[in-house]
């Protein structure tokens, strides 16, 4: 079998390499923490105080009152008003407003006549998100403000009440932490490992190791062990910062989480190993790891972008990526507090992929040696 | 004191990296047109000394004068007057032979007709004429070394610094290389050459032996052999090594990148 002391010698050597490369180490440890802080504090999606303009050819107490009600809402903030907006496009270009509320001439007069008055919202659609939010909000706000001013009640035909599950305070950190774990563990286990092995091949030191008493299996395991450790440390760091700085508690069983993470790490390590057998130089390993694992994972796993909204071919690709399943599992455990009973399907998929990749990787490695 | 008499002169030149002294207060002088052998074992401090003289490294203390200019304060003036060939091949493998020559010619201020004329001259001198359109990476090692020498010499420098130019080269090529060096010296170029091959340095006009950062001996080969009663420089070197306490400074620490 494997000699423990020889294994540990290789592992220690690899660990020393890792610590000497402080630039990479800093990035690997600091980047997830930085992302969490950014996402947690800076990247809030709540739209508020959207700057808007009023077009009011015949100002009246009514139009002014409506305008101030719009301004008083948390969603909009009236930046100013113009008599006419002949060239609304230029107005949008010059001033950073996102919507122009347009009163027609003699609005106040029409208000009290049969047939009523009309008021329009012209929306800057360049940011479609904001555009949609404003479009959904424009009618109700205009209607509500006007009815208020004339002393009528808003017709509430239908009231939609919402209950947010799993993340009642809508904290984005809660959503982000699992995805971050998946990406970081992949980065360490696949990217760093493949580059480390490829580097030894490139420098020729691998040949040196192979002629020593070391068995090939010992070399692989010895090299991989420190990265397994680093991945565990980084994963733990992410959870710890998530807990301490953002109050992200693990609703489910932490040991189950650890077990599933190990399965994922092994899958990622196999990918790293596989890449290192294919790549002849470090640079190739880097680009392969980035292009074939990191990029698809970040984009297609559901980490940031909702997979369901993507076209079918991409959704299929998403189901090939191990991270997609891991993400489902981690989110289930951390946010929903569910366990094996609900998560056995993605876990089986992940484990299956892991075994397959490990088998392929070890076979390729043996052949190459 | 006129530094102009000497091509290269150092006064107590020293370089320290942390606690480790790589070059320890050396006094070296090289006359114009001389072939000067700068000897020492691997790790003795030769490359560090050469890099200080070329302006690539700043001395910790002491002075160095190259072509009459101070290495610390007037390095820009020195650069136009010297050529440098480093131990590791440092031309561009993905350029052709003629492109590498053109590059270095231009960097040294040669242009147009003058550049082309010099390129032809150097190519002929070093036997590179047929290799001009070839990709540098396709050349065997010995020819790559010749190219390095050509590039270092295009601008007719006063002094050529050659760091281990004959490392890993076969004996016949080495002999040819030394012929070329002596021809250059005959044309008036000062050659400052480091080596750890004790046999080929018998061809130098003068040489110095560096041990653990200090100059242990300096003079013409004949004078030194007579002084120390040795039949060869190799023997002389071993004798000097015996008298020095080994590993005084401990193993060389890994030099941190700049």
């Amino acid at each position, binding site marked *: 079998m494997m000699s423990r002391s020889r294994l540990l010698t290789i592992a220690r050597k690899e660990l020393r390499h890792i610590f000497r490369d402080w630039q990479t180490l800093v990035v690997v440890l600091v980047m997830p923490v930085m992302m969490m802080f950014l996402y947690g504090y800076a990247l809030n999606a709540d739209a508020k105080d959207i700057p808007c303009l009023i077009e009011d050819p015949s100002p009246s107490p009514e139009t002014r009152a409506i305008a101030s009600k719009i301004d008083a809402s948390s969603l909009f903030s009236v930046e100013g008003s113009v008599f006419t907006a002949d060239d609304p496009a230029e107005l949008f270009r010059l001033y950073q407003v996102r919507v122009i509320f347009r009163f027609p001439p003699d609005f106040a007069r029409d208000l009290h006549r049969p*047939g009523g008055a009309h008021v329009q919202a012209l929306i800057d659609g360049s940011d479609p998100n904001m555009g949609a939010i404003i479009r959904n909000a424009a009618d109700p706000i*205009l209607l509500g403000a006007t009815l208020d001013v004339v002393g009528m009640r808003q017709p509430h035909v239908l009231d939609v009440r919402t209950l947010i599950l799993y*993340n009642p305070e809508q904290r984005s950190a809660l959503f982000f932490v699992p995805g971050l774990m998946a990406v970081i563990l992949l980065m360490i286990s696949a990217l760093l490992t493949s580059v480390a092995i490829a580097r030894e091949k490139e420098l020729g030191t691998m040949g040196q190791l192979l002629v020593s008493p070391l068995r090939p299996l010992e070399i692989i395991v010895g090299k991989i062990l420190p990265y397994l450790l680093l991945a565990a440390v980084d994963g733990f760091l992410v959870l710890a910062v998530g807990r301490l700085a953002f109050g992200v508690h693990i609703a489910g069983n932490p040991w189950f989480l650890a077990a599933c993470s190990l399965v994922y790490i092994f899958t990622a390590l196999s990918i790293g190993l596989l890449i290192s057998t294919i790549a002849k130089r470090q640079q190739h390993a880097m680009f392969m790891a980035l292009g074939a694992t990191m990029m698809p994972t970040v984009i*297609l796993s559901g980490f940031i972008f909702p997979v369901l909204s993507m076209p079918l071919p991409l959704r299929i690709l998403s189901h090939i990526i191990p991270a997609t399943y891991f993400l489902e599992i981690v989110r289930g455990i951390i946010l929903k507090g569910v366990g094996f009973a609900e998560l056995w399907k993605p876990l089986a998929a992940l484990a299956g992929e892991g075994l397959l990749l490990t088998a392929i990787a070890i076979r390729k490695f043996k052949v190459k040696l | 004191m006129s530094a102009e008499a000497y091509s290269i002169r150092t006064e107590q030149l020293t370089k320290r990296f942390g606690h480790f002294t790589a070059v320890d207060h050396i006094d070296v002088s090289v006359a114009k047109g001389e072939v000067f052998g700068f000897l020492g074992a691997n790790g003795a401090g030769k490359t560090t000394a050469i890099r200080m003289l070329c302006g690539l490294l700043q001395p910790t203390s002491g002075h160095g004068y190259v072509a009459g200019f101070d290495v610390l304060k007037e390095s820009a003036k020195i650069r136009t007057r010297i050529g440098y060939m480093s131990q590791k091949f*440092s031309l561009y493998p993905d350029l052709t032979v003629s492109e590498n020559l053109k590059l270095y010619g231009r960097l040294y201020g040669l242009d147009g007709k003058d550049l082309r004329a010099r390129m032809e001259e150097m190519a002929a001198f070093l036997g590179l004429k047929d290799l001009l359109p070839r990709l540098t990476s396709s050349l065997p090692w010995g020819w790559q070394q010749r190219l390095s020498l050509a590039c270092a010499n295009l601008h007719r420098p006063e002094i050529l610094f050659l760091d281990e130019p004959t490392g890993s080269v076969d004996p016949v090529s080495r002999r040819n290389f030394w012929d070329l060096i002596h021809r250059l010296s005959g044309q008036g170029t000062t050659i400052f050459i480091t080596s750890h091959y004790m046999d080929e340095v018998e061809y130098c006009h003068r040489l110095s032996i560096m041990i653990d950062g200090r100059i242990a001996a300096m003079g013409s080969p004949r004078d030194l052999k007579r002084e120390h009663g040795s039949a060869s420089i190799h023997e002389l070197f071993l004798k000097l090594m015996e008298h020095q306490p080994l590993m005084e400074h401990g193993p060389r620490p890994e030099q941190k990148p700049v």
Partner: protein
Amino acid sequence: MNGFRTIVWKEFAQLKRDKTSLRLMIMIPMVQMLLLGYALTTEVKNTPVAVLNHDGGSRSRELIEAVAHNPLFNFKGSAASETDLRAGLDRGDIKIGLIIPADFSRVLERATRLDPGPGGTPSLGALNGEGASVQLWVDGQDANSANVARGYLGAILNQWAMGDLRHRLEGYGMRLDQVLPVSTGASVLFNPSLKSTWYMIPGIAVILVTMVTALLTGFSIVREKEAGTLEQLMVTPLKPIHVVVGKAVPFLIIGIAELMLALNFARFWFGVPFRGTYIALLAFTAAYMLSSLGIGILTSTLARTQQQALFIIWFFLLFFLLLSGFFLPVENMPHWVQNVTLGNPVRWFMHVLREMFLKGSGFTELWREGLAMLAIGFGVFGLSLVKFSRQVS
């Protein structure tokens, strides 16, 4: 001086030989644009939804029909009980559950009825406080998507309700505007269909250009450091600034070429319009590249190997990107964060490019952003130059 031109010439001579890299430089951005263009949608589609209907009346059935037929949602059917609905959410089979209370049809009937009011003027039940309600249970893990999906569904439900109201009023021979004194409307400028790709693709172009200029420049210098060729250059009369600018210029040109390629690809494949002028585009891009090239050069002074250069640049760029308004608008960020982004060149370029693409803005409208980019660019490039010079001497 000769030095600049010589280095630029050398860089092109080397690039010409590196056919693999050239091919990658063209292919990878296209592939990325393709992938990201489709994947980076902030629209929320195909949200799986199920309904729990306690009501036996016809109105609730009509409501469910409206939801089931809506293309934005993936109707998964009815749940048997609240536990059942909850289980579906727990398993992730559905993302939203719609619960219709038992008296829905009856209450809605009253709300849309026209009562004879005091003095003979008819008044709408709804205006007198009658109103039906439904409840949504939303999977809130992904706060952004949840909000968007909830907004869509809410809008659909309200639209149905208003439609129902109008229909009822027609039965009385009345129109909505006879009951209400005002009607409202909304229209959209610049991106009428609110297409996500139109917004994201200029952003992707920014990322591509930044990657090419920063990464390739950084790699180029670190490679020469690793190989020892940089040292050989510094023995010659060449000055550090010649090396830096000489290396930056070819990558500036390549970056601009990439941008043009991306622009045309976006136009022909995704149909994203470019409404600006090319002159303005080039000017602003060049101003931006001072920063991106500077970052590449700065990184080369920190990294010993190419892998380190990759990680460091990645780190910087991710930081800048998250705070650039690429995903979420800068205006929605806390004020102190917004102040920090004033120094972020990616933020300015992102804004400029989007405005140019979609609104056709130019120098008159964007000169402030241009100035900001120039100021930051000179700062970053200057700093990188100083650090580089110090390192090689």
